[in-house]
Every structure is written in C-alpha cells, then in structure tokens.
C-alpha cells in the first residue's frame, strides 16, 4: 500500500496562530501541564506568538508546507487576521481550526449583529465613560512626516470563520476546547510521525452524539411550562436543567466536553457548536424549544398567552447562536446601505 506518510521528519513542526482571540485557547494548551512536555518532545514549535517571542517575519521565512500541524484560534476580524490565516494555510500540511472562534466565529462573531461604524460610535463616542469632545476616531493610516506613515489593520464589518477563508483539515471546537480533545493532539501527532492513516478531512473532534447523550442528569419528561432564570432559580441538581425550564443548549450541541458546565449546574451555552447532523444550531434550538414549551394545555392558550410564554426567551440570536453566528445560515445582520 502506498504510504500515507506526510512527513519523513523525526520531529514535527507545530505552529499556533491566531485571529481575534481572547487567548483562552492558548491557556488551554498550556494547561496540558506535564503532557505539554510530551507534545514538545514530538514537535518543535515554530510559531506561537502568544507564548514565545515569535514575529510574523519568522513565519514568513518558513517554506510552503514546511509546518506539519497548525492550530489556528480566533475569529477573522481584520486584514491582519486574514493575512496570517492565508500564510498559515500555505505553510502548513495540516491546518486545524482550534476553538469555537476559529471553527464557528465564537463570541467575537457576535460582532455580526453590528458593524464597524456602530462599534466605533459606541467605543469612541456614545459610551458613558468616554469623553471624546473632539470626535477623534482611530485612523487606519497615520502620517508621521512627509515620507513616513504607519498603518493599522482594517477592521471588517463582518467576522468570519477560518473555513470561510481557507481550506481547513480538522476542527477542534469548544470555548476553549475541552482538555480531553486537546490531549488528542498527541496521538494525532504520533500518527503523523508514524505515517498512520489520518482522520478524514473535515473531521470535527468531539462526540458523534449530542451533549444530552453524555449528560448524566436524570431525564424524565421534556415538557416545560415556562422559562426560568438559572441565576435565581432553585435548581434540582439531579434533574435535566431544560426540564426545569432553564434554557440548556444540550439537545443541539455536540458532545465531547463531558458536560463540564452541567456538572457545575450551569446550562450549556452551546460552545461545542452544532450537534452532529445539525446544520444550524440556532434554528434547531428554536425548533427544539418550541416543541417542548407550553405543550400542556396548548389547545386552550390564546395567541397572547403563547407570546407571553415565549417572551421568557430573551435575545434569541445572542442566546442560540452565542458561539456560531458567522457559521449560521443567516450569518450577519442585514446591512443598512450607507
């Protein structure tokens, strides 16, 4: 059989690059602890600006496909992020979208509910804590003298996922990805070194089932009569949170985190992204919640009572697409033509 080996090296080259990120993904990798030593034993790190003193020039000097594995975290928000993502793609054999931001747009992807102008108006103008009488807004280009100017990256109106820009080989979702998935990088690296069959392109690391499948809370009867607030509610720690009226994204979210939020009695907010076979996490949740809320006595409810019941769900897009707006079917707010 033809060898699947994508490298003959004894030690891999690993890069960790970024877009608009909170760096939680970097911290999650550092949290590998002792296993980090094992990882470093398998791969030389050739780019990881958050942790080591790497410059973009270091990256640009590498040859095409010279990096064996790249982890990319963060949303694509600026021209700088776009440039780095394209360079990483060109220089890497295996490009992995790491974390919900890179996979689906993540929390920064909620920027798609506004645009650059609205953000600048708020941050440099309207916010109560801002005093900007002269109306000074950041410029992308600043002239220092006749011959010299410095430029800042351009901020896009719309946040993008990595896959919307370049081809992505694998996806490791989670905000940040759960430890058990990050640890999975080590066998993957060994497979690359040993020339073993690699997972199919496009594989999403995580469970092949939804979160509810691995959640250990007792599920009895998914019919709820109202939405309750998880902060003020008195929660039965044994019973499914959704059945208690707490909005939990478990039914539409991919498993793989071992229900780490549920284990501390916080409802799932959906950071692992859409469940397997789910095309769009948010509309699936609309469908799921409408199927169980207000079922009892439904034939006697007036239109107004139905509206009132559903008004317990605030901010639908921000709740049901908290981590996946750029990846959704309707992935940004309709732009007003200016």
């Amino acid at each position: 059989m033809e060898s699947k080996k994508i490298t003959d090296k004894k030690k891999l080259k690993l890069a960790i690059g970024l877009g608009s990120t909170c760096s939680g993904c970097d911290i999650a990798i550092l949290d590998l602890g002792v296993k980090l030593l094992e990882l470093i034993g398998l791969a030389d790190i050739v780019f990881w600006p958050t942790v080591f003193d790497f410059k973009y020039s270091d990256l640009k000097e590498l040859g095409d496909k010279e990096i064996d594995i790249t982890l990319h975290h963060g949303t694509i928000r600026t021209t700088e992020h776009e440039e780095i993502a394209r360079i990483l793609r060109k220089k890497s054999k295996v490009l992995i979208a790491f974390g919900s931001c890179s996979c689906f747009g993540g929390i920064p992807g909620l920027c798609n509910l506004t645009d650059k102008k609205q953000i600048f108006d708020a941050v440099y103008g309207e916010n109560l804590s801002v005093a900007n009488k002269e109306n000074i807004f950041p410029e992308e280009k600043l002239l220092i003298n006749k011959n010299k100017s410095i430029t800042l990256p351009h901020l896009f109106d719309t946040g993008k996922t990595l896959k919307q820009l370049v081809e992505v080989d694998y996806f490791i979702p989670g905000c940040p990805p759960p430890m058990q998935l990050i640890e999975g990088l080590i066998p993957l690296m060994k497979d690359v070194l040993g020339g073993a069959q690699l997972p199919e392109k496009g594989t999403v690391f995580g469970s092949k089932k939804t979160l509810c499948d691995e959640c250990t809370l007792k599920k009895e009867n998914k019919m709820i009569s109202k939405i309750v607030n998880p902060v003020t509610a008195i929660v039965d720690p044994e019973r499914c949170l959704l059945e208690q009226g707490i909005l939990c994204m478990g039914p539409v979210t991919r498993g793989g985190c071992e229900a780490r939020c549920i284990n501390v009695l916080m409802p799932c907010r959906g950071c692992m992204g859409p469940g397997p076979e789910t095309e769009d996490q948010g509309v699936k949740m609309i469908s799921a919640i409408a199927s169980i809320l207000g079922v009892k006595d439904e034939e006697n409810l007036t239109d107004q009572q139905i509206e009132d019941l559903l008004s317990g769900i605030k901010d639908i897009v921000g709740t049901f697409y908290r981590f996946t707006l750029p990846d959704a079917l309707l992935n940004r707010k309709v732009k007003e033509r200016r």
Partner: protein
Amino acid sequence: MFEPKIIGFCCNWCAYAGADLAGINRNQYPPNIRMIRVMCSGTIEPLYVVKAFKEGADGVFIGGCHPGDCHYQSGNYKTQRRIVLLKRAISEIGLDPRRIRLEWVSAAEGQRFARIITEFTEEIRKLGPNPLKLSGVENGI
C-alpha cells in the same frame, strides 16, 4: 415592477386542499407563490424557512389546519410557537418579520386562501426584495 418570490409550505390536509379548492373554484390569486406540499405544518422545520430566505425568497407562507383540526393532533400548535420565535429571530437579524406569514386555512376555504395569498403578495411587494441578497458573510465584508 418588482415581482416577489414567495415560497409556500402547506399541509396536505387543510391548507393545500384549500389551495386546490381555490383552483377548482377559479378564485384568482397572484402567481408569485411556489407551493410545497408537506404532510403537516408541524413538519416545517424553521430551517426550511431560513433556507428559503437564504436562497433569495422574498416571503415565506406557511399554511396549516385550524387549531383542533391538525390531522396529527398537535402539529399546528408546535408550528405556531416555532414561527413566533422564528419571526423574532429574523427580526433580530434585520429581516422584517412580516416576510413570514402563518395562516390556518381549511379545505373548504378556497376563497379565503386566494384572498390571503393576494394580500400577502401585495405586502411583500411593498416590503421590497429580500435584503439578504446583498448581505451575509459572503458579501458582507
């Protein structure tokens, strides 16, 4: 003049039969609606509606049986709740919720069906083309 494209999802037992009756009775209504027959309004996933908009529909009509008349008992109650939420979601995204219309139409209401579709077509005509055609990540930067 702008000719709206409207996608209609109608349940087999009532709304679609109502549309049929409109045809038999020769009740006139504008040809802007493309109708898709489904077994029950409860099978219309919000995903279908969103996909229709994504693909450029200017309006989406959903027709089901009157409350109490669903042939699968409760499909239409579920549909009603879904559409309430979906309308809110699309208006958060900046689409006018009037672009979705849910109506209960019985098999005997051919004339009413024709009137509703005429009204809805005119309403969408006033709202203008689906603005998503110019939005979305694909052409949003």
